[in-house]
């Protein structure tokens, strides 16, 4: 048996008791296999890719651009990357305009090619003469990135094509620098590895700008970081990792 009665607000107590009685009788009742109100089906709601509010998650993969400009460390293109995961909030202003912000975590890795002997001599004086095999800087950042969006073209409840203008601020929450050497001429040691964490010679706060071209489930982005990675504690190090990264966001619909 199924009881379906609509109650006024002031009858809530009676309703509660009635429902408790019904639930206690559940073992003797028919199963409601399907119950549907038409209004639920027809309701448009204000949440959706092209509605008033929208939230979706995303993956991000990007690569650092090896610009070879003055005072820039040469990096290994494919191995120097950024990847991340986050949530994007969107608020629609009109059919063409929207704004919102991203909250996310980014993992970054630089593999340097250029000999930074002056840097390493500051880090640890005893490891400079032999050949450097690996020089890897990794760090994780938490990121807040407000953006302004311009949409193009007619669309249904869909993200469509758009251009995003983004400002981002980021906090470095973890960092690690790994250096590996071969010592072919040494009879005592063949390889050595130097790992350091909580680096004092990197900046902790970053900010920059980003431009995104979006189409349906992906964005192509181009990012410029306005703050160098290494801070003033490495006074005699003239080299800084690349400021430019590019890549794609893969959007995961709700």
């Amino acid at each position, binding site marked *: 048996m199924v*009881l379906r009665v609509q109650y006024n607000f002031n009858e809530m107590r009676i309703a509660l008791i009635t429902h408790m009685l019904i639930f206690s009788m559940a073992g*003797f009742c028919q*199963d409601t*296999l399907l119950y549907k109100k038409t209004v639920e089906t027809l309701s448009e709601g204000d949440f959706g890719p092209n509605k008033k509010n929208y939230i979706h998650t995303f993956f991000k993969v990007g690569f650092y651009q090896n610009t070879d400009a003055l005072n820039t460390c040469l990096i290994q293109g494919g191995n120097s990357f950024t990847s991340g995961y986050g949530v994007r909030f969107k608020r629609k202003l009109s059919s063409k305009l929207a704004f919102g912000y991203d909250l996310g975590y980014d993992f970054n890795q630089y593999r340097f090619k250029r000999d930074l002997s002056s840097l390493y001599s500051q880090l640890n004086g005893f490891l400079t003469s032999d050949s450097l095999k690996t020089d890897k800087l990794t760090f994780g950042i938490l990121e807040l990135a407000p953006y302004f969006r311009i949409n193009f*073209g007619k669309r249904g409840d869909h993200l469509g094509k758009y251009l995003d203008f983004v400002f981002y601020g980021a906090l470095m929450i973890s960092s690690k620098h790994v250096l590996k050497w071969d010592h072919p001429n040494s009879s005592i040691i063949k390889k050595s590895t130097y790992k350091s964490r909580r680096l004092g010679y990197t900046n902790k706060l970053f900010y920059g700008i980003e431009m995104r071209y979006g189409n349906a489930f992906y964005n192509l982005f181009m990012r410029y970081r306005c703050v160098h990675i290494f801070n003033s504690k490495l006074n005699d190090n003239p080299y800084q990792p690349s400021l430019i990264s590019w890549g794609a966001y893969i959007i995961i619909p709700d």
Partner: protein
Amino acid sequence: MKCILTIIIALALLSTCAQEKYWVYFSDKKGVTFDPKEYFHPNAIERRIKNNYPINHFSDRPLVKSYVQEVSGLASLCKGVSRWLNAIVVTANDAQIEQIRELPFVLKIEASSCHSVVCTSEEINVTHNDFEKRDLIRFQLDRMNAHQFKEHGITGRGLTIAIFDAGFPGVDKAPMFEHIRARDGIIGTYDFIRNTDNVYRKIEHGSMVFSCIAGVTKDSLRLGVATGANFLLAITEKLMKEGLAEEEAWLFAAEWADKNGADIINSSLGYTRRNHFKQDMDGQTAIITRAANLASAKGILVVSSAGNEGNKRHWMMVAAPADGDSVLAVGAINPWSGFHTNFSSFGPSSDKELKPNVTAVGHVIAYHKLLKMSETQGTSFSAPLVAGFAACAWQANPTLTNWELLKRIETSGDLYPYFDYAHGYGVPQADCFLSNTASKSNDSAFIVDIGDSVVTISIRDDLLINDTLFHVSENHDGVINIITKRDDGIKIDKNHPFIKHELFYYHLENKEGFLDEFSVLSVEKNPIVKIGLDSLEDRILRIHYYGFTRSIQF
């Protein structure tokens, strides 16, 4: 810095200079000559005569060549031409489209758009062996009593079914379609995405759909009923690509199917929020729906899957073209539980037309390229079951027009005259097309007690069938029937997996004539349901059980 600037400019150009797609409608077809007998397949002319539709209708005449040439010359690319809409699709930038707008013969211009679309339903395979598969194959047709068509020698012969889908790999080689190939039953093919005749490639969704209309296994088990029909196969779907381009391809395919004498179009495709808002599902907005309605006006029965959005919280309702009022929208039932399966889209359309119109089994055995056949699910497969059924019904009743056939299929539903927005009129029954069946409506099956505040509904004791589906029971051999729960909460009686379950249905219809709510209940003992009188004010309560329907006006 140069590099940054270059990339930023490139990104900006990519979006701002990207060309948009437009429909350019022409004002007339002045001076066009058209010989219908030369253009149309004889079947198409016959169909028009039968439906009292002019054989030289304005919408069938070709476009004015000079108009097409002039607009194509101004635009970047002409993507297609529609006689029915008297329009062409072009890609153009803002300046070009302004030039086109100035042309004196241009009636109006509508912006189109390009968005990705993917149509899937989650896969839950339940059949574990060939024995269970064979059971399901039988049930997917038996649920419609379709074996009766076979017994009467009805296989859809003389009818042409056009199937619009994403690809038909294997149809040219697989033994399952050998009986159709042997008699040259595939009378035309066209890929409207790549503009070639080869459709035996790409996604095998179309092959699976085809098998549910006319597939036969090597041991002569039929997956669909229209094994004697002729077929037109068209690719209109391109996964992960332009959504509206596919709707346009569907329109061009419908014109092609009409020209080549199609009687039925089966479309197991659905377009939802990637292209549209819910309010656009009003039967007259989406291009694909307009095309389906035009096809119907020309005498073609359009059978469309209702959509697999029933469990998607931001859509739930039917997908275009199932919203068309002259389209037979087919929902899906779960063969184990006997009622609405969770992914099948709900109606009504946004203009509150009843959708889906009917239902069929939505978990089926269909063709599979590697496994020969496999279990799959979706309204994509319930629609072709009904399309095949419709072909047989039409063969049995050749004087019916497409609209009359649609209505007859509705009235043959096992719930009729009851309906709701999950099941429509239920699963169509073949016996209704082969003999005159008595009306199922019978008030005496129910005991309705109207109290001061509550209406109590009971079923006459002799009709009360205690459905084994929902109870652990012991059979005559003393073996306990094992009832398991699937991931989606549906219980399966493994000893009797596929039987027609007798369930209790009720809905509340308001003054405007559409349903406010509806429900399905299992039946164990009386009373079945109690409904508060305050929720029944100015409404019709309609109840259904075991083929009996009763309406009570409050």
